[in-house]
């Protein structure tokens, strides 16, 4: 039995869970019809393979992985919608499969590609529906409604029918509805999917705010690594159903060699500089971008190297985009 203090500080505790699915296999050949009917071929796929992880209360965790890595399966298991094949799960100290009703009063779940809004009703009717189904006290509902209306800029769309909202407006309304019952923990599956830059920034600012001010634990999945880096303090990368990385974003960069980028500007007609210690990524009209391994080549060495090139007009050093780091990581996993 786990000590009580651990239960009090943990929002999630996943212990050695495995989830297996059965996939039907078909050759597509007419000669296999009888074989398919009599002895259908099935393949067992491990969506999650003995995963263990813990998330403390108040954390903002990014849960990422390539398509089919097992992200949505994990969120469904944590929400009590799906049961693991083996292993145990504890969310806010309870088993989601056994205490679903209690748990749903304390957590919020949002699947980005679906909506919980009532399609043929104005947004405010969906909020009123939520108040009744969740039995939210008047004072809490009023306070939260004012808060989300202001922070997510909803006043213009509260009376609009859900089916007439744009994708960005719908996501904002869905997130607002998710928070009306003051959940301690929220699961967001692809909340920035399809949003434009402004809508995305607004969403990210809002999620960070409720994480910091209300101490709401947030677990978010997304394919947009830049968004995840902007939001979360910790990233868990999942590959083929296993945890491939668990740490912060700087540590993730270091895993891939701590690569940095340097952009050098010269006169338009100049050719790229000869820097054998670095890898030239692209060059265009006197702007040359290189990549270097900061662990092998310190910044002071870079400066010393560049001092030999008086034609440099400007320079910029930046971390490698997290998208590229993760893309390289996915590629290395695929090759292995």
């Amino acid at each position, binding site marked *: 039995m786990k000590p009580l203090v651990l239960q009090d500080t943990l929002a999630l505790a996943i212990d050695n869970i495995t989830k297996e699915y059965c996939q039907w296999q078909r050759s597509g050949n007419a000669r296999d019809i009888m074989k398919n009917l009599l002895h259908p071929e099935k393949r067992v796929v491990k969506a999650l393979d003995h995963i263990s992880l813990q998330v403390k209360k108040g954390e903002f965790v990014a849960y990422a992985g390539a398509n089919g890595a097992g992200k949505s399966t994990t969120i469904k298991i944590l929400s009590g919608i799906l049961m693991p094949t083996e292993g145990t799960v504890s969310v806010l100290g309870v088993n989601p499969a056994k205490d679903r009703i209690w748990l749903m009063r304390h957590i919020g779940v949002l699947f980005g590609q679906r909506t919980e809004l009532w399609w043929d009703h104005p947004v405010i009717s969906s909020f*009123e529906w939520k108040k009744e189904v969740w039995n939210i006290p008047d004072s809490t509902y009023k306070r939260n409604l004012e808060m989300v209306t202001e922070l997510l800029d909803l006043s213009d769309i509260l009376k609009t029918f859900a089916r007439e909202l744009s994708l960005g407006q719908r996501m904002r309304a869905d997130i607002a509805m998710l928070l009306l019952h003051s959940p301690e923990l929220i699961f967001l599956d692809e909340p920035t999917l399809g949003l434009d830059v402004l809508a995305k920034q607004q969403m990210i600012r809002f999620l960070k705010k409720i994480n910091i001010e209300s101490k709401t634990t947030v677990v978010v999945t997304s394919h947009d690594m830049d968004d995840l880096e902007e939001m979360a303090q910790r990233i868990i990368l999942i590959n083929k159903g296993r945890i491939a990385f668990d740490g912060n974003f700087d540590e993730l960069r270091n895993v891939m060699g701590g690569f940095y980028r340097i952009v050098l500007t010269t006169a338009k007609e100049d050719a790229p500089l000869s820097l054998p210690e670095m890898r030239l990524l692209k060059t265009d009209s006197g702007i040359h971008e290189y990549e270097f391994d900061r662990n092998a080549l310190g910044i002071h060495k870079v400066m010393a190297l560049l001092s030999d090139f008086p034609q440099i007009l400007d320079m910029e050093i930046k971390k490698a985009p997290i998208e590229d780091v993760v893309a390289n990581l996915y590629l290395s996993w695929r090759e292995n």
Partner: protein
Amino acid sequence: MADNFKTLTRLYRQYAKMDLLWFLRDTRYFFIQLISDVVSGGCTIAGICLLSANFKNFSGMTQNEILFMMGYALFIDGIFMVFFIGNNTGMVSRIIGRGQLDHIMIQPVPLWAELLAQGFAPVSGSPIMILGIGLTAYGAVRAGILINAFAILLFLFYSTCSIIIVMSFIYLISCSAFYAPAAAEEIAVVGKDLFSTLKTYPLGNMKGFQKHIFLSVIPVGLCAWFPSTLLIKAGKYGLGAVLIPEAFYLPAAAAILSVIAIIAFKKGIKHYETFGSPRYSGFGHR
């Protein structure tokens, strides 16, 4: 138990409010729906009157008794429309087949309470029920059936049993959508159509075996003909004219079928939780 009842009341209240708001959402839609309901109601009544004229003294029932039976059948359709038409509750195979149970499972209420309440449409679904009440009363008066408090209570009790049979049958066949979601997504519609088209046929002259089929395995006879004959006997000749086994057959059948449906549905839910939303399985939502 008391908490669940409170939850159910709260849900019914909320869905009634939403149905009213939906019905009155727009002047144009309101009038279009009103006119279409009047036209559809008129067609229903005309159809029933023509059928009852054709069925005159058919199957051991007079024309007015046939009218009463058809009023009863229409009332059952009305209950379905008022309590189960909203949000595909009566067409539950669509909810299962499309993987939409997830939406219900993330609500902090018992699954049964949400499934029971979310179909409640007391405003938009009421025209058929009102017509059903009117036709049943008209048929009862014309057929010389005594109308008193007991007769009304008996009518309500039998009609509750009949709608339990309809819903249990639909839920039972809809359970196949847990295992073959794409193929069985529309199976509830087939089940509903079976009752809508067959339940108004009097079974009086049918041979034993066929009649038993329609009173057991395919229980369409229990949703109009059988209860109507009992109500006509009790209303015309007194309660003593009704044999005890036949009086309890309908409630017993409703209880047995509903228990089987609940067991099958629970097994299906277990499958849903174990293997995930069928939307993502090999035979998932198209």
